[in-house]
């Protein structure tokens, strides 16, 4: 059976009073892959996920999950799991009770996995959720997200307050479980370097707009930084798209879009220039900064008219 894409949006926009939280978002994401939804805090990541999970609604445009509008549609909602970063739990609930509730609603719930994660995260399940630390609260959300094994699972900044060890546990378990039970996973994050190796597809959102929507492998090695004598750097990068420019006296460091050929590597070596790869994180930072600059540029131009 050929199924509709896991996630589809058409000209999706969301306006809060005078703030444009989402601006003409168009996505078509096939099922059973791991997606990275990256961007700064307040870029619109949570708003987008809320609309995709029927927890919020769009001002304009459409959102579909497996071909259905999720809003108030139980059959579709039951295929989704989205624990928000600021998730509220009933005041009197203990973590164990939240898991009990999740086990009632999520048909693919795996209690063994949940218990396993509780041990790995060292989570005090008999303590009221209200009294848990930020990291433990994140762990509750991560455990529900993982053990639900929902067809589409959204993780909203799942690592907040988790220490390095706990974060690694999360990433390791995610790979392990995804390998056994492939499903659609959307990982929202602003700690890009940590998750970049897990992602198959990357979506970068900035000020409500999609600025990057590409396969991870297209982005790996898609830019490089050249450092050295300013003149030689200029000579080497002539005609290239420059993403970023740093200068220190006669030393220049340029981040350039494009893939290095062997020819270019040799040329750089001959010119005595240093080449270094650009991480996904740096690429995202550069792209969002440039997108912001472009936008300000157009606004200034419009203002001048």
């Amino acid at each position, binding site marked *: 059976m050929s199924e509709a894409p896991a996630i589809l949006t058409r000209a999706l926009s969301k306006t809060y009073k005078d703030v444009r939280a989402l601006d003409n978002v168009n996505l078509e994401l096939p099922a059973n892959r791991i997606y990275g939804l990256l961007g700064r805090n307040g870029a619109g990541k949570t708003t987008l996920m809320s609309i995709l999970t029927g*927890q919020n609604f769009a001002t304009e445009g459409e959102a579909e999950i497996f071909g259905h509008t999720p809003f108030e*549609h139980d059959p579709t*909602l039951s295929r989704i799991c989205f624990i928000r970063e600021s998730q*509220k739990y009933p*005041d009197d609930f203990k973590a164990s009770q939240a898991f009990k509730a999740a086990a009632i609603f999520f048909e693919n719930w795996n209690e063994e996995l949940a218990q396993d994660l509780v041990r790995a995260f060292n989570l005090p399940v008999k303590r009221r959720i209200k009294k848990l630390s930020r990291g433990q609260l994140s762990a509750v959300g991560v455990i529900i997200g993982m053990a639900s094994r929902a067809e589409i699972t959204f993780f909203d900044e799942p690592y907040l307050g988790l220490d390095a060890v706990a974060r690694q546990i999360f990433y390791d378990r995610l790979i392990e479980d995804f390998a056994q039970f492939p499903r659609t996973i959307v990982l929202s994050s602003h700690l890009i370097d940590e998750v970049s190796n897990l992602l198959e597809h990357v979506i970068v959102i900035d000020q409500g707009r999609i600025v990057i929507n590409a396969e991870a492998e297209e982005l790996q090695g898609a830019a490089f930084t050249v450092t050295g004598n300013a003149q030689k750097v200029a000579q080497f990068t002539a005609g290239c798209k420059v993403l970023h420019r740093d200068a220190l006296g006669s030393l220049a460091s340029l981040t350039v879009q494009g893939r290095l050929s062997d020819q270019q590597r040799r040329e750089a070596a001959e010119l005595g220039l240093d080449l270094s790869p650009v991480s996904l994180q740096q690429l995202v930072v550069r792209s969002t900064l440039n997108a912001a600059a472009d936008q300000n540029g157009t606004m200034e131009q419009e203002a001048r008219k």
Partner: protein
Amino acid sequence: MNRIIKVARMQLINKWTFIGIPLLVLACSFLLTLAIWAIVRRAGAEDSVYSGGAQAPMWYFLALGIQALTLTFPFSMAMSVSRRTFYLGTVALFSVCALALSIFYYLMGLVETATSGWGVNGQFFALGWVAENNAVVQIAFYWVLMSLLFMLGFFSATLYMRWRTTGVLLFTISLAVVLLGTVAIITYGDHWPAVGQWLAAWTAGSVTLLGAGLAVVLAGASYLTLRKATA
């Protein structure tokens, strides 16, 4: 349907909230009342004694209506439940609990009458004005009253969920203005004696009908408000 029952099961995960606390409140209020009656009798009072203590759990339902929504609604969203399903499951569960408690009130009222007011001629469950009606009216009276209070709490909470503090504030102010206006009209028109007669004419049956009507209106308004609420 299945998911509606699941919502009810979720609400019951902490059994204290829906079942334990109301019973505890009732038990405490009853025991305190008995103690007070014993003291009063000792002091030499002869007439029959009344207590409004049976109301106590009902007021808890007002709080429960607020709590069921504000605490569980955002969580139910995370459990991928639609607003409609959450609403139906929660209201249905409450109705069943309230009906059970109403029947319990009626049965305790029978015991109260049979033991001539717990041996001290007291009226706790079987208040004369209600107890003079048949079983159906008695049970319906308690049930409607509990539901009305629950829906009142539930409705104010949906207002909060949808429009936050502004919504609740506006609603409270408008309600106060309407009440004050009514009182003003009655006072300036010298209608108070007429109002007194009108109030005296109410029976448990007619109160039940009016309450049921109000509860249904609140239930409808709650659903319409909740439909577009966000966690």
